[in-house]
């Protein structure tokens, strides 16, 4: 079992350095929820199908990330507050390659 370190800046601007497991089939959105870094009901609304943008985050570190799927591209094209480094947390699978990842949660859509 190996954990990796991830730095997540929440919507209030507070940065949390947390341990994320690589052996539990988790994605970044689920990690955020497990640590309750965003209120329940404001993140992961569609459950992780890339069908809402509630888990959008900005990737601050220079990690090589997996390519976006068509679904993720399409969803980000409809999302708000999108930047060049935007990704959907639910599409980022926690692997050892992501050790040291730094992300910031995008603002909640109101």
């Amino acid at each position: 079992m190996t954990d990796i370190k991830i730095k997540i800046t929440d919507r209030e601007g507070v940065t949390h350095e947390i341990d994320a497991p690589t052996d539990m089939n988790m994605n970044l959105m689920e990690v955020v929820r497990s640590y309750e870094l965003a209120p329940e009901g404001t993140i992961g609304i569609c459950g992780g199908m890339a069908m809402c943008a509630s888990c959008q985050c900005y990737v601050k570190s220079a990690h090589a990330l997996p390519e976006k799927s068509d679904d993720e591209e399409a969803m980000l094209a409809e999302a708000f507050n999108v930047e060049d480094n935007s990704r959907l947390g639910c599409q980022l699978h926690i692997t050892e390659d992501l050790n040291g990842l730094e992300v910031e949660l995008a603002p909640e859509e109101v």
Partner: protein
Amino acid sequence: MIKTDILIIGAGPTGLFAVFEAGLLKLKCHLIDALPQPGGQCSEIYPKKPIYDIPGFPDILAGELVDNLMEQIKPFQPGFTLGERAETIDKLEDGTFVVTTNKGTVHSAPIVAIAGGLGSFEPRKPLLENISEFEDKGVAYIIKDPEIYRDKKVVIAGGGDSALDWSIFLAEVASEVTLVHRRNEFRGALDSVEKVQDLKNAGKINLITPAEIVALKGNERLEKVVIQRAGDNDNEISLAVDNFIPLFGLSPKLGPIADWGLQIEKNAIKVDNTLDYQTNIPGIYAIGDVNTYPGKLKLILCGFHEATLMCQSAYQRIFPDKKYVMKYTTVGGVTGFDGSKKEAPKAVVKAIE
């Protein structure tokens, strides 16, 4: 005024199954939903996605599950108020509730079951600072009556099915249709994408991609939209329009239910999970994804269970003096309010000579 026994707010899978369990107890149900069709998220967000954890179904598409539930509850003749959002609730002296929608439809029932999922689906509004000033003055998020766009200059934004379908439809109605999307690719039915391509080639749809609308201008009414092409911040396009229709899909909001005096925790309604999923207001229950209790899981199958126990408790509230013994459908069959009767075929009892 619509009168019923159990008024269900939310016509997703949990709300629909509650109709069946109530029907077995001879209780009538009426459902309110903000969406124009039943099924909740299953119909609106992921109708074509397979679900693998519905007991007895190794896999079933979300849309099929809704179709099956509608078929299953048909004998119990549920009423529907669709396309309206439950807005206010009042408790009368006789203990019954009156629920009024945003369109003024009034419902009365002794029991209210909130099966609202993540809330009512509201259009996602683009983040343009003055957009609210132009709502109903040129800006609309939903097309109610396409005729109001006749001979108008219309700009549509979005990249999904509704943006494509309405661009196609309005190409024949409006004097000018411009479709703006942040990418060159559209996510929609292949037919619609090809149709928009044809209409673009024929000069009937003005397609601007990849681009987005960055500002709205006008006095009182919308007069212009400012469009920025991706990667080109210097050359903004100022387009004179009568109407701007952003179609960015829907997102759920707990909405007015949050102000009904119910205990809310983590954007969900607290209920008593040791008994019957009743809220802090006796007679109001919350079932399915909208509720929370220790160990809550937002699963359809959990919603079905919660709906079943809720109906038993509702029965006891409506008929406090009646003693009820649960009957299996294999024993009692299903007797619909429409006179239909489903029951197990009788076994033949006959001697073998």
